[in-house]
Structures are given as structure tokens and as C-alpha cells.
């Protein structure tokens, strides 16, 4: 099982009170793979259903964000490799 990797970057290093703060988290894991399973049901007479697809992620990652100053970070977006969080200075 591979270990995940992560980076975190803020949109500035100094914020004025009230400024919007944006945190971009880039993350990945060699084991994490998207997988699509296609299912076709076939009866004894050879009749087949239309294929249906389900997707799954092998070894999905969970991202947690904490802030030692007590700020709450809200997830704005997450595409599975890049997540953006927002807070207020």
C-alpha cells in the first residue's frame, strides 16, 4: 500500500483582517485509481440487458484541514486531486 502525498498552498502569506483566504491542497496516492465496472445481465436464452456502469475509487483519500488559530476552512471544490478551501482572516 503506497503512502499518499500532499501539498498545501495559501494564496498569500499575510492577510488583512476580513480578507478571503484560499487554501489549495494537491493530493494523490499511487494506489488511488478510478475504476469503472460495466454490468450486463444475460438470461439463459442469451438475452442481454443494456449495459450499466458504476464507478468506484480504489483506496480513496480523505482530506482533513485543521487550523491552529481556530479558523474554520470550508471546502469550495474538490476534483479528487486538487481541493480548494476557503476561510476569512
Amino acid at each position, binding site marked *: *500500500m503506497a*503512502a499518499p502525498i*500532499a501539498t498545501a498552498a495559501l494564496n498569500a502569506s499575510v492577510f*488583512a483582517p476580513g480578507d478571503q483566504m484560499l*487554501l489549495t491542497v494537491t493530493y494523490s496516492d499511487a494506489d488511488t485509481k478510478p475504476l469503472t465496472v460495466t454490468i450486463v445481465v444475460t438470461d439463459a436464452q442469451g438475452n442481454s440487458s443494456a449495459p450499466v456502469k458504476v464507478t468506484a475509487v480504489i*483506496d480513496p483519500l*480523505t482530506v482533513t484541514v485543521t487550523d*491552529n488559530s481556530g479558523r474554520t476552512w470550508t471546502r469550495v471544490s474538490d476534483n479528487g486531486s486538487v481541493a480548494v478551501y476557503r476561510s476569512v482572516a
Partner: protein
Amino acid sequence: MPRVTVQVRDAAGNTATAVADYSLGQPVLGGYYLSGGADPTADMAGGNFRSLTQYRSLADGYIFPGYNRPWLVSLGKAGVQMNMVLELKHYGAPGYGTQSFAVDGTSYTVPAPTMTIQQRPGATWPRAYGYGQVIKGQCDGLLARALSQYRTLGFGVNIQLASELDTDHEFGTTEDGKAYDWAESDARAVQAMNYILTWFKARTLPAGTTFSVGLGGFDRACFQRTHPESLMSRLDYLQWNAYGTNASHTALARFRRTKDWAVADLGPVALSRPVIIAEWGVRVAEIPNQAAWIATVPAAIAQLNAEGGPRIVRTNYFNSGWGTLTPKATGLAALREAYAKRPYV
């Protein structure tokens, strides 16, 4: 320092951790300057004015707080942050001669200034103590006199060496009959600034003392030449001035011009320093509605600071010359309103 910690965990419990540190800046200080170095107390009263620019010639026997300026001590003790511009430029009065005086029991004789600056064709070229004179130690008495007075103030100030080196050097300088072009003048000034910094930093300074060098910020090459990393490592602030003098000038564009050059041209030490806008203003001849222009300044400063790069931490309105508020009451009301908003609060 606040820190965000990001933890990424997979199904098996393997984790990766990344951190990002940040700090919270104080509100930008809204500031002022009143024509002639006059008492600004009445104009500032009741408004969120927290910063002030003042100009003194090192030739003057009264630098801190200045001749007949007890109000500067009152404002400083009330927490107004002082940007004291100390100039080698001689203001012309009472004369250009040799000075002899004693400072704390030590006698000094300082020769007459031998340099000319601001050599605009057709204008009278002002005199200044020469960069060569400074480096030879001939002006040490001026520094000693200034420091002795500074120690009695009761608070620390930012000492801005020179008002605008680019304005001083734009048409070259002359010292002891020898002419120096703009770039040569910049290089000599950097040496002289270093000498003055070494002189001050070797002595006990009031707590909170900081240093910067002064530039109008209108010439990119000069700004780069006067901000080598070796000098910036001894300075606490970047500084430039910003004026709206054309109907097409927006506040954002005017404040950002020099910042963009700095970000493109200067090194990491310079860019780690916050910025004092020692003067900003809007010229009524081209922009009659000064109040409307002033009203756009808070958002411009907030945007520039949000973009990263050196943070603007003080902006002092120059109610004189190009920035003269006309009518004054309308302009002052606009300034008060601007300084009551983010990022000034």
C-alpha cells in the same frame, strides 16, 4: 504564527501531512502630510489618521521634533507612526556656509554642501551635502546632532533617507565641480546611504527605529539601481510615492506601477519588506473630483495587498503640491471616509 495543517489519509491509514503558515497583517495605516510641515493635528482630529510624513534637512539645527513643532511629540506619543524624511538637501535657509556646533559635549565642524541636485534645465539647482562628503565623514556632525535630538523624542520613528532619489538625480548631479549622470548618482547615493546606515546602526537608537530610502518611484531603472539586496538587508521598508495627475490615472494603476517593477526587478530581501507610501495624492487640475478618486483608494490598496508581493502598510496623503486638497474640506472628508474602511480598519 497561525498554521493550516492538511492531512490526507488512505484506506489503510497511511497519511501525508502538509502545512501552510500565514500571518495576519494589521490594518493599513492611513496617514497625512500638511503643506509646509504645518501642524496637522486639527485636520487629523476625529479621523482614523495613524501615520504622518515629515521632511527635515540634515542642515537644519532642529530636526527632532523640528523647530517649534511640539505637536509632533504629542502625535507621536499618541501612537501616530512617524515617517521622518531626512534629506542631505539643503533647504537654503539661513545660508550654505560651514557649520560649527557641539553635540553632547563634542564639537563638530561641517563644511558647506558641495553637491547640486534636481538639475532641471532652467531651474535653480538646490544644494545638498555631497555623497562624497558623507562617505568622507564630513557630515558625521549632522548625523550626531540629529541622533541626539531623536533620543529625546520618546518614541521610535522610521527614518527615510532622502525624499526622492530619482527626482534628485533625474538630470544628474554635480559635486566639487564633477558631473555625474543619473546612474552614477544612484550608485554614489547607495554608498552614502550605506555609510549613514552604518553610522546610525553602530549607535544606540530609540526602540522601534526603522529605516528606508526615498524614491518617487517613477523610473524603473533607478528604482532597481537604488535597491540592491546588500542595501535592502539593512532597510526595513520599501517606499515610493503615488500621484494621480492625469484624467486616465486610476488609483490602482498608480499605486501598483512601482510595485510591479519591484516584484519584477528586486531580490527576495527587498520583496520581504513592507511598503510605506510616504506621499500619495490626486491633482485637482486634471482630476477635479478629488473625493471620487480618493474613494477608490481603499479597494485599490486591499487588492494590491491581496495579490501578494510586498504589502503596503502605510499611505500618507500629501496635502500639498500636486496633492493639495481643493476645496480642502471636501478632500478631507473623503480622506476620512476612505480611512474608515477596509483595509484601513
